[in-house]
């Protein structure tokens, strides 16, 4: 209130010119400078540097050679395929498990608060810490997971040392860590559905399963769209978990584009590394933009 009276007293003196907007564009300035210089500028610069052989001090224009190399080298193609595979697996599992958990955690069930907390907590924990922990737990002979499996008579696989399994193992850990976020998004979506709909469905004689199928599922579509997009983009960009767990190994079996970018950067192939970045931009644009349009269009029809 003191603020109001103080400024009110100043009215005759200040006389704000009529044309100046009370919402000045200058408010954009600090954010725009930081974002423009540190994010947009490098992004545009990468389009040029991806076409060069680059040592940070000088660059030689070599056209599309870097991209040609990306499509020629088997381990780089492998990284490309792995990235898409990883994004599809993690986002698919997060949607299914997140929805199931959310339905469970919004139903009448004991210890709901405990369950919500315990599912969500891994989201907040350091990815590298989780990665290292699971690397140990997934140790082929000494790891707890395989020892537990041995007790019930199953010979556990070499989670991270088997080339055809390593990427999936990392994806599973990603789901373990990220499913809590999907769950809370779904919970927010489900609790927003008016109770009347369920009541109407019940009066019409629908079973619990039918209520889920015809009320919950269609009405929490916005949550589904969010979960798919978030985890799909996150999956395409993923780096830290893979780096903490396998470093892209064994061999190149679990390399993704993001880990390839880091490896090429470490090896000093800056041009190639940047080309990897551009490939990742293209991959995200090509996959995510149509996906967004598809998901939003379907939503409009319903």
């Amino acid at each position, binding site marked *: 209130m003191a603020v*109001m009276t103080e*400024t*009110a007293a*100043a*009215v005759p003196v*200040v006389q*704000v010119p009529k044309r100046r907007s*009370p*919402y*000045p564009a200058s*408010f954009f300035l*600090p*954010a*725009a400078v930081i*974002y423009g*210089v*540190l*994010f947009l*500028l*490098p*992004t545009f*610069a*990468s389009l040029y*540097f991806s076409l060069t052989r680059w040592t940070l001090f000088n660059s030689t224009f070599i056209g599309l050679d870097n991209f040609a190399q990306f499509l020629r080298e088997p381990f780089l193609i492998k990284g490309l395929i792995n990235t898409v595979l990883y994004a599809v697996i993690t986002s698919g599992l997060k949607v299914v498990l997140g929805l199931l958990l959310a339905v*469970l955690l919004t139903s*009448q*069930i*004991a*210890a709901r608060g405990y369950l919500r907390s*315990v*599912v969500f*907590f891994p*989201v*907040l*924990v*350091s*990815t*590298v*810490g989780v990665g290292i*922990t*699971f690397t*140990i737990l997934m140790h082929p002979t*000494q*790891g*707890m997971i395989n020892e537990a499996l041995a007790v019930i008579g199953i010979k556990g696989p070499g989670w991270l040392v088997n080339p055809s399994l390593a990427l999936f193992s990392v994806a599973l850990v990603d789901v373990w860590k990220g499913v809590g976020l999907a769950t809370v*998004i779904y919970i927010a979506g489900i609790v927003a559905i008016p109770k009347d709909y369920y009541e109407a469905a019940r009066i019409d004689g629908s079973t619990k399963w039918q209520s889920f199928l015809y009320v919950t599922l269609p009405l929490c579509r*916005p*949550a589904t769209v*969010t979960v798919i997009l*978030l985890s799909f*983009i996150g999956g395409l960009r993923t780096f*830290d978990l893979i780096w*903490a767990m396998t470093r892209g190994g064994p061999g190149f079996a679990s390399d993704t584009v993001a880990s390839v970018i880091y490896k090429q*950067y470490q090896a000093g192939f*800056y041009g190639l590394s*940047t080309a990897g*970045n551009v490939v*990742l*931009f293209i991959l*995200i644009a090509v996959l995510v933009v149509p996906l967004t349009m598809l998901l939003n269009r379907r939503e409009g029809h319903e």
Partner: protein
Amino acid sequence: MSFVRNYWLSAVAIVVSAVVFLIPFSFIILMAFKDKTQAQLLDFSWPQGMHLWSNIVEVVTTRNWMLLTAFINSTILTVASVTLVVILSAMVGFVLQRRKTKFNGLIEFLILAGLMLPPAVVPTIWLLQGLGLFGKLHGLVLIEVAYSLPFSILLYRAFIATIPRELDEAAIIDGARPFDVFFRIVLPLLWPVTVTNIVVQSVAIFNDFTNPLYYLPGNANATVQLTLYNFQSQFSTSYNLLFTNIALITIPPLIVFLFFNRQIVAGMTAGAVKG
């Protein structure tokens, strides 16, 4: 009937959640209590003797108190970046929501691009070197700010839409300048979403591994996440120390979680649904 089924369902849920989520965390804690030889077995067993304190001392003092330096660095990084992000993005969100111009579409496009696209790493390093910010903590602060802005702006824009325009109009009629309208009237009203934003961004920046790895090389500048990475090879035979380190850097998120559980969930879902 239904009560009985829920009873069983609850029991199953609690057991499964304990196996899937609690055991890995208990494993970390148990490992942190063990001595070197027992930790090497990598099994889920009760520690023989209490070695937590000696493990902590050893982890903290390793490499010239690197972990302590790292905690200081991470704290500075988190506090500075979050403060900047909150103020700058609230300003952008405010004007973006209130003022409709032909540039709004472009600005929104750039924000969405920032949410989707990964940063171009090597060109950023090249640029930071040119600006003399590479390998500097304040350089990384600016980087974290740049990368966190899009999400934060969307969060604020959505919230500002719920604050009636009449409020700022009244202040304007009373002669308040734009600066005062924002900092003395609008910003205080944004407090609930600001708390959420602070919590979500702090956790994200404190846990960030990739950006310090690229933009802040060198042991002197290590952040807590990098200590884990650096110790991974050094402690490859002393798992007790590695897990003590993991346990120690999990404490700050745990504290935040205990106090701000609700805000975190609200922020992540609100921001996510809007984004």
